């Protein structure tokens, strides 16, 4: 008979950057905490929102930057150019700002087809027009073949916050409702199915879209105190809805309780995730938002969102609670309860 022993490993520390450091999950957070934050710490940065809100001569400005390295550069429902515009517009919009101006920096790989670059740029132009922002400055660099991956784009955005809007990830309070604007996981699964040449019945398209119009209609709902009722806003990109809600729970030091059956997932996305062993709650979105709002206003906000083309499936998916601070729990469809943790690194397909 075999003696059942034990099976230990040394604690594992990464001495190099690994892909997981860019996943938006725990490894990314660790990198920010151990490398970036100590170097640059200041009260604005330390809020760790997706944008900085600064005051200049009495005007509140929202300021943000984001890099885009998606492969493939063209995918169903979008491309790297459209993503670069909307991603930055959305980071501004999540502070309640009116996005105004963008800057774009391009890192091009030697050998990139000029036609592909033209397609990307035209798509950026169209996306900027749709979002009502101007691209006002930029930069271009070219690197040797093999030192980049076709094209990397960094966009920086500037917007103005009008009125008494106060939105930040540390403002969730017990009793608040959690609103999701629509189907989750579309973008991540669209890119993955294109990248891996996986063919699913019924194409999955990226949800890439600018969200400031939707945020505008949400901001119109005032509370009994005459102030806007949105406390936190995030677009759940890398790491998905689960990671975004964990960030808010942790920064606000509150718990959350979600209802699994309320969370909208398209059948094609659910199916693709089942096949690959992925969880749609951790898959990236590029045209969705989660909002933490005062309970009294939740129904009206959802009602208004549903009138907007990007909020047709808006729904309350749970609430903020005082228990289990920093932790997101979910009531499952069969009545059990599970913890939704932050994603660790890359979400990996399971073996079987």
């Amino acid at each position, binding site marked *: *008979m*075999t*003696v*059942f*022993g*034990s*099976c*230990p*490993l*040394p*604690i*594992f*520390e*990464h*001495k*190099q*950057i*690994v*892909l*997981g450091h860019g996943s938006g999950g*725990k*490894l990314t957070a*660790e990198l920010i905490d151990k490398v970036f934050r100590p170097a640059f710490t200041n009260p604005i940065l330390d809020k760790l929102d997706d944008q900085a809100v600064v005051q200049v001569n009495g005007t509140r400005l929202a300021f943000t930057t984001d890099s885009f390295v998606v492969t493939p550069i063209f995918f169903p429902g979008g491309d790297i150019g459209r993503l670069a515009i909307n991603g930055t517009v959305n980071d501004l919009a999540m502070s309640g700002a009116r996005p105004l101006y963008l800057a774009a920096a391009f890192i091009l790989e030697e050998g990139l087809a000029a036609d592909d670059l033209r397609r990307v740029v035209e798509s950026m132009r169209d996306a900027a027009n749709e979002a009502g922002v101007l691209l006002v400055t930029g930069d271009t660099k070219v690197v040797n073949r093999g030192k980049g991956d076709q094209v990397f784009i960094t966009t920086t955005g500037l917007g103005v916050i009008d009125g008494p809007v106060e939105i930040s990830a540390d403002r969730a309070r017990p009793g608040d409702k959690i609103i999701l604007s629509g189907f989750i996981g579309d973008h991540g699964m669209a890119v993955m199915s294109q990248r*891996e040449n*996986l063919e699913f019945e019924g194409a999955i398209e990226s949800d890439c879209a600018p969200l400031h119009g939707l945020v505008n209609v949400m901001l119109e709902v005032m509370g009994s105190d005459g102030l806007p009722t949105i406390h936190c806003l995030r677009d759940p990109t890398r790491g998905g809805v689960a990671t975004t809600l964990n960030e808010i729970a942790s920064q606000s030091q509150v718990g959350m309780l979600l*209802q699994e*059956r309320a969370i909208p997932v398209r*059948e094609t996305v*659910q*199916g693709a995730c*089942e096949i*690959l*062993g992925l969880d749609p709650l951790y898959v990236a979105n590029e045209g969705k938002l989660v909002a933490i709002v005062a309970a009294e206003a939740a129904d009206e906000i959802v009602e208004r969102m549903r009138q907007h083309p990007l909020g047709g499936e808006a729904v309350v998916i749970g609430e903020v609670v005082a228990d*289990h601070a920093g*932790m997101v*729990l979910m*009531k*499952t*469809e*069969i*009545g*059990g*309860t*599970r*913890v939704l*943790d932050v994603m*660790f*690194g*890359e979400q*990996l*397909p*399971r*073996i*079987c």
Partner: protein
Amino acid sequence: MKYLDEYRDGRLAGKIVEEIHRIQTKPWVIMEVCGGQTHSIVKHGIDYLLPSEIELVHGPGCPVCVTPLEMIDKAHAIARRPDVIFCSFGDMLRVPGSDGDLFTIKSLGGDVRVVYSPLDCLKIARAHPDKKVVFFAIGFETTAPANAMLVWQAQQEGVKNVSMLVSHVLVPPAIAAILQSPLNRVQGFLGPGHVCAVMGYREYEPLSAQFKVPIVITGFEPLDILQGILMTVRQLESGRAEVENEYSRVLDREGNQAAQRLVFNVFEIADRKWRGVGTIPKSGYKLRWEFREHDAEKLFDVKEIDTLESTVCISGQILSGIKKPHDCPAFGKECNPQHPLGATMVSAEGACAAYYAYGRHLKRDKDDVKLTAISTGGPA
């Protein structure tokens, strides 16, 4: 979605849970063999719907968890070579060996790729005739046919630059080893649905008879698992010990015979080391001699790599059902999915990782949750 929603129906789940509560009179310890079942149990919160006297323990059926450290070190030695493209299922990439994981090797310039099917390696090999393409063939009987197909096709089509590092293990010898342990507490098993979809369940009948334990071959959706538990408890309460098939929509007693023929054409039974457990005789597969040209262990100079596992974490005892993740002092502290101390924390299917991700908060208020679930007849 169709074929899934039916098996996640809260109302039906509530009825099965009620029936389990109604018939259970004694405490029982039941092991779910598969990592996929463990994953589903914690993902859906199934264990907290059960009577507190029914204890689920998580078996050795997580392929990533039981692959021995030594084999991972061999894989890493091969993956570091500049002439190699190393292909693996996704969750193997984060399993730490003695010095880093495959992600680290990739970050240092190794060509490490995730494949969704072993046959993808053939395409990669044809596209890179100057490289040696090595597939890390791990898993139970479930993955064996697809893995076997890779070398079978490579040989048929004369693709020389494909090989496999084989670390295949089998479920029945592991169940036998658990039952023979003097520390064994397991009284009934949820048998491995997908393994039996390939192999059928004939080979579980002598185990059930010899050790007088119920084995209910069970699927992976919440209703499958609850039904499997109900069938196991029924047997235990009535003193029966048989093999029953809960997963009849997928498998029968004989299994997939075409797949079995392929597996036995390519592999033969061999002794295998299990991580955290040690060597179990005749508990795995190795490539047959006819396929030696595709055997990575023979092609690359890794025979002498022999890593000893130390004795800090208790994952061996967790894999064999003697202890639970909460019993480990390191659980959720020094040991978490970001910094796994042991195999069971590495894969999402590993008992510790599954507990960490889904079950951490609930370890002590089981009865409250159970009562809520019953009083509402299922989901809230």
